[in-house]
């Protein structure tokens, strides 16, 4: 592959660029001469204009997900949304019970919040997934107890792209009167979400996974009946007292524009992106030793989780320097633990290390996919060529 001035970006599941239309809208609320005023300043026209922009953005977010405007709370991102949903609900209802249910394959912002709650006296049941990465709703049903306060299951897994059956899980929770939270970071704008029909009580969203800016997100909070959460940030009473802090007008407007574009163009985007993803997989599946995780279950349109058996994932990434993609193992340190998601799917440490996540998005082109397929095939072939011929343990010192 010829050297490009920029890598081919295939890491949309980690972050998307802001859509140029989003940036244009944000600039209207940022600099001198813009509507930069504090949306809490009701005493002057600029403040009121900023408030109107915030509420218009709230309406756009609500419109994409079939919610009412007052059910949308702005946060700094999905991590905060997940923290507020889980911690806020559990602490507000701690007198009613101490048990929570989730899955083993949630994002760290959910798992770490649950661990924090465990340290605070709550008990959590982590339901496993099957080899395809699916959480069985019946496993969730079996995990529920009379003192269960909340269940949290992500809509689309961020490493495999596998879509969970949140409708069935939500119905089970609703039968039992248990609050159901869904992390929808990887599904918003890619899959239809209608919270008027979906039995979900809390749902988390991120700006920078849907072509909006970083540093902004939202939490859907069902208002029928209104759920009470204990705030985790205290201050000026913004967002109905649930999330204090001056509203970041430009970020919120950007988020609203991103959701508006997703509402109008998301289905078309998804169709085109899925076509490219399938084309890429059609090319790569001809390589012996490449396995698609979640191959036989529904997956979101733009993501491939591929295990390249027999080679080192880090070396493969190294030789794919012209591609910006992610290793399946989400390592927090230079040599972190293998991905908990891939391990939950039954992958060995070596297989998890040799797994790459390729995620496409709105600005991916057919030409990029062609170049990426060729580069991956060449690099994998090269790595296999230099791999040891013998299997099994080799003598060495303990390091």
């Amino acid at each position, binding site marked *: 592959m010829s050297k490009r001035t920029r890598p081919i970006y295939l890491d949309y599941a980690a972050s998307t660029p802001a859509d140029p239309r989003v940036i244009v809208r944000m600039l209207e609320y940022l600099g001198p001469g813009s509507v930069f005023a504090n949306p809490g300043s009701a005493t002057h026209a600029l403040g009121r204009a900023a408030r109107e922009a915030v509420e218009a953005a709230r309406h756009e977010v609500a419109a994409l997900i079939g919610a009412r405007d007052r059910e949308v709370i702005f946060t700094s991102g999905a991590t905060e949304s997940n923290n507020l949903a889980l911690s806020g609900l559990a602490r507000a209802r701690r007198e009613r019970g101490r048990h929570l249910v989730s899955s083993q394959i949630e994002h760290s912002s959910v798992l770490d919040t649950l661990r924090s709650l465990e340290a605070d006296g709550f008990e959590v049941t982590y339901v496993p997934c099957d080899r395809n990465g699916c959480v069985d709703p019946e496993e969730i049903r079996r995990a529920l107890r009379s003192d269960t306060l909340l269940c949290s299951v992500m809509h689309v897994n961020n490493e495999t792209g596998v879509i969970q059956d949140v409708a069935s899980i939500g119905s089970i929770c609703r039968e039992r009167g248990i609050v159901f939270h869904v992390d929808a970071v990887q599904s918003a704008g890619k899959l239809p979400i209608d919270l008027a029909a979906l039995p979900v009580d809390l749902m988390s969203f991120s700006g920078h996974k849907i072509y909006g800016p970083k540093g902004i997100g939202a939490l859907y909070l069902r208002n029928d009946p209104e759920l009470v959460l204990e705030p985790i940030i205290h201050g000026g009473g913004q967002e109905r007292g649930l999330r204090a802090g001056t509203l970041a007008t430009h970020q919120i407007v950007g988020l609203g524009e991103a959701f508006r574009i997703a509402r109008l163009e998301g289905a078309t985007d998804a169709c085109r992106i899925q076509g490219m993803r399938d084309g890429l997989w059609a090319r790569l599946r001809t390589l012996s030793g490449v396995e698609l995780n979640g191959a036989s279950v529904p997956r979101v349109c733009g993501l491939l989780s591929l295990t390249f058996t027999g080679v080192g994932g880090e070396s493969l990434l190294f030789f794919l320097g012209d591609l910006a993609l992610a290793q399946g193992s989400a390592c927090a*340190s230079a040599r972190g633990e293998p991905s908990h998601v891939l391990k939950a799917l039954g992958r060995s440490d070596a297989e998890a290390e040799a797994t790459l996540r390729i995620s496409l998005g709105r600005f991916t082109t057919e030409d990029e996919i062609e170049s990426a397929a060729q580069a991956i095939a060449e690099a994998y072939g090269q790595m296999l*060529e230099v791999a040891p011929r013998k299997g099994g343990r*080799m*003598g060495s*010192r303990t390091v």
Partner: protein
Amino acid sequence: MKPGDGDPVPLLPEEGESPRSRFERWARDLRRAGGFEPGLPNVREGTAGSPEQGSEIEFLLEIRDGLIARARYRYRGGPWTGAACAYYAEWLEGRSARSDIVPPGCAVAGFLGYPRVRYDEALLVEDAIIHALGNEDRSGRRERGGS
């Protein structure tokens, strides 16, 4: 001729690079990756690592008249493993087939600018080479000598 045979850890020239550039250059250098032609005599083979350790190395050394005529390797692991293999392979060719002159993995890792958590990958490569030098050749004979 390579200088310093027998001296303490003579490393290859730096070529005025930053440690990162040096690492990348060696990690991309696959000239000596692979094996020898089948049936070649006087080849010693050493291995190290395991899938569980995340790195596996096979080092192959062709010995002639007590010298390492050619070095080849195969590896599975990170680019740090690959860089150490490539570096050692170049360093070894033309030197005495003695394990006591092989540069320690730590020295090679430092020279190539590895982060501390990656030093073990160079140590494993060193292990494979030491094992190769201590092994009989593939025909069952042990090359005698040292010049």
